[in-house]
């Protein structure tokens, strides 16, 4: 895999990882042992027939390979880019025991990109069933449920509150990791299956709960979009953002092109980001591209950083300064942010997650000069709609309770993706949506 540049000064939003060539794809696919009992598939939440598609790539049958993937995954160009393959299919690859695993993600991406250039084909759909299903949210969960249900022959309407479909794929993950024209192309495929996407419809407000429940079945894929704030002093100063707001301004509203686009964003000469996950890395790398000196503060140790290793590497290569074992305690400033006061953390006994518990060291406070402070400390399920459906049981953090089929405690209402699991991954959202779509199809056929 070739990163477009490992230099410090990145100012554009072009994709960093440029993918692999056709020759390299075939060469890579030929490394596959075509195991009798393939373990890679067990590592895939949507169960793609990985050995089959890899063999097709090895034989140069790229069209066949992408058709194989699309039987189980309608968003291959997206997943090939953002899935944490190292902990899924590639993590389970036998070759990985002694050498590098087959680069399944790069192959998936390659064939999906190849198809987009050579004309996209649609998988088959069943005859119309005459049943109507409503899907709320057009993130990976909603899109997957919609595509599956449409293929089963049901009439699907997706409601999306924003003016563009895609959920986090559109407003959260930046262009340099996931170009928006790719997201749009894959969403177009879902629409071509007959799915109607109604943008600018906030269910719970533009569509009443009763209107929603008038469909034969409902799938909730409303995600985990509620940003948490640290609750520290100075958090409402000008220049303090949630990662969601910062990323939305840039990715969805194109604030990087202000004033040609109308939405502004504080660019910041010195930006401090708090958090250690992929969201924090994305925010830091965007801030870097807007021209700031960027410091990322994380409360645990370097080896505990939850972000993907490749993202940490990219962030560093682009000049993001990572400070571990530190935590912001106050934002300093009068009207605007002037500095972030942090405290050093020491690692104590292991906590429930098996990681050492950080605790602050007294009188270790220090200041980092900053004019923009971005909090990327996690998100919870968006409470708006679920709170309007009181029959829905919710667990601790507000996650909607579902059974193995994605069935909620409300009849005919299913849920999947981040709203049920809490902030997770694209592919887990898709996997749970697929299961729910199959269950919805079963109840609709039984009646």
């Amino acid at each position, binding site marked *: 895999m070739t990163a477009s540049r490992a230099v410090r000064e990145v100012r554009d939003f072009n994709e960093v990882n440029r993918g692999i060539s056709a020759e390299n794809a075939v060469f890579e696919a030929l490394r596959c042992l075509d195991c009798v009992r393939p373990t890679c598939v067990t590592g895939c939440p949507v169960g793609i027939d990985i050995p089959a598609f890899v063999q097709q790539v090895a034989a140069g049958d790229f069209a066949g390979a992408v058709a194989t993937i699309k039987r189980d995954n309608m968003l291959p160009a997206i997943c090939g880019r953002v899935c944490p393959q190292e902990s899924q299919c590639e993590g389970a690859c036998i070759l990985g025991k002694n050498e590098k695993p087959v680069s399944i993600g790069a192959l998936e991406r390659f064939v999906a990109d190849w198809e987009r250039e050579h004309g996209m084909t649609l998988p088959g759909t069943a005859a119309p069933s005459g049943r109507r299903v409503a899907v709320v949210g057009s993130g990976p969960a909603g899109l997957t449920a919609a595509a599956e249900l449409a293929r089963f022959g049901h009439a699907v309407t997706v409601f999306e*509150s*924003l*003016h563009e479909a895609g959920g986090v794929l559109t407003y959260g993950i930046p262009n340099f990791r996931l170009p928006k024209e790719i997201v749009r192309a894959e969403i177009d495929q879902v629409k071509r299956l007959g799915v109607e996407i109604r*943008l*600018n*419809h*906030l269910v719970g*407000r*533009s*569509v*009443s709960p009763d209107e929603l429940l008038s469909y034969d079945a409902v799938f909730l894929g409303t995600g985990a*979009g*509620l*940003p948490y*704030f640290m*609750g520290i002093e100075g*958090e*409402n100063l*000008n*220049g303090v*953002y*949630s990662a*969601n*707001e910062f990323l*939305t*301004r840039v990715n969805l*509203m*194109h604030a990087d092109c*202000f*004033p*040609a*686009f*109308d*939405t*502004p964003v*504080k660019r910041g000469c010195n930006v401090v980001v708090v958090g250690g996950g992929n969201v924090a890395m994305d925010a830091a790398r965007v801030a870097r591209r807007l021209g700031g000196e960027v410091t990322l503060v994380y409360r645990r140790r370097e080896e505990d950083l939850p972000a993907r290793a490749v993202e940490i590497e990219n962030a560093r290569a682009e000049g993001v300064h990572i400070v571990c074992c530190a935590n912001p305690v106050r934002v300093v400033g009068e*009207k605007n942010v002037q500095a972030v006061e942090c405290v050093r953390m020491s690692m104590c006994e292991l906590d429930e997650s098996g990681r050492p518990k950080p605790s602050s060291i007294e009188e270790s406070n220090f200041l980092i000069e900053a004019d923009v402070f971005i909090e990327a400390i996690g998100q919870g399920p*968006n*409470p*708006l709609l679920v709170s309007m459906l009181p029959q829905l049981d919710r667990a601790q953090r507000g996650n909607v309770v579902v059974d193995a089929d994605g069935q909620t405690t409300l009849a005919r209402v299913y849920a999947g993706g981040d709203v049920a699991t809490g902030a997770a991954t694209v592919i887990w959202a898709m996997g749970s949506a697929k299961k729910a779509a199959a269950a919805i199809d079963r109840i609709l056929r039984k009646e």
Partner: protein
Amino acid sequence: MYLVEEAAQLADRVFQLWIRAPQVARHARAGQFLIVRAHENGERIPLTISASRGDAVRVIFMAVGKTTGYLSTLKKGDVLSDIVGPLGKPSEIKKYGTVVVIGGGVGIASTPIIAREAKEAGNHVIGICGSRNKDLLILEDEMAAICDELFITTDDGSKGIHGFAASVLEQLLKERKIDCVWIVGPAIMMKVTSNVTRPYGVRTFVSLNPIMVDGTGMCGSCRVTVGGETKFACVDGPEFDAHQVDFDSLMQRQRMYVDEEKASVEHHHHGGCGCCGSEQR
């Protein structure tokens, strides 16, 4: 695409649009707002739903910057890229007894729909419309038709009572029992006016107008401090108990992009987007 069904100028720099948006119009209640993205490069800005009729909603706004300046140039038959709504919680309307609905400046836009619902709930409704001068006053006839009593105030005395809405409110509170008050207007006006009801312990609602992005509770741009807690105005509000609101923090956050806003309008002028006519007025 959302069709402009009617466009009109109501006062100096104040405009009104009727826009076809069935999913908004059919669900809209007093106190709610919508978010408009005028065109492909546009910003998402919140505007109060001032009335609804069939499949259309009315918004009234003052041309203060790039987006509102652009909206002021629209004519019947033009289209807007995106409208989402109704957003926010509806006003807490019930039978209180005697209620006072106060609008300041362009904030008067929000008052007829509140006054009407309050009236329908069986309240005695007193309206107060305050503006800087008589040329800026809007919706007087509409409010007069809904309210049991209506007071007009102007800062310069060019119409109605010379003075602020707060003074009329103070007088009313002294003279009779007032059960609930709504105040909609600029933050500073809401702060000052709601201080008047505080000693009387009268339930007072204000409609907060922080800077928003999505309006659905996913960014936190609109966070305000109410009773010491952080609330998202777009989903927890926009109406809150006035006596709990930290207005100073609201006003400070409203100024977050003053420099960028200037740059934006300048860019717009030199970009020749056709709205300069309205801005030079």
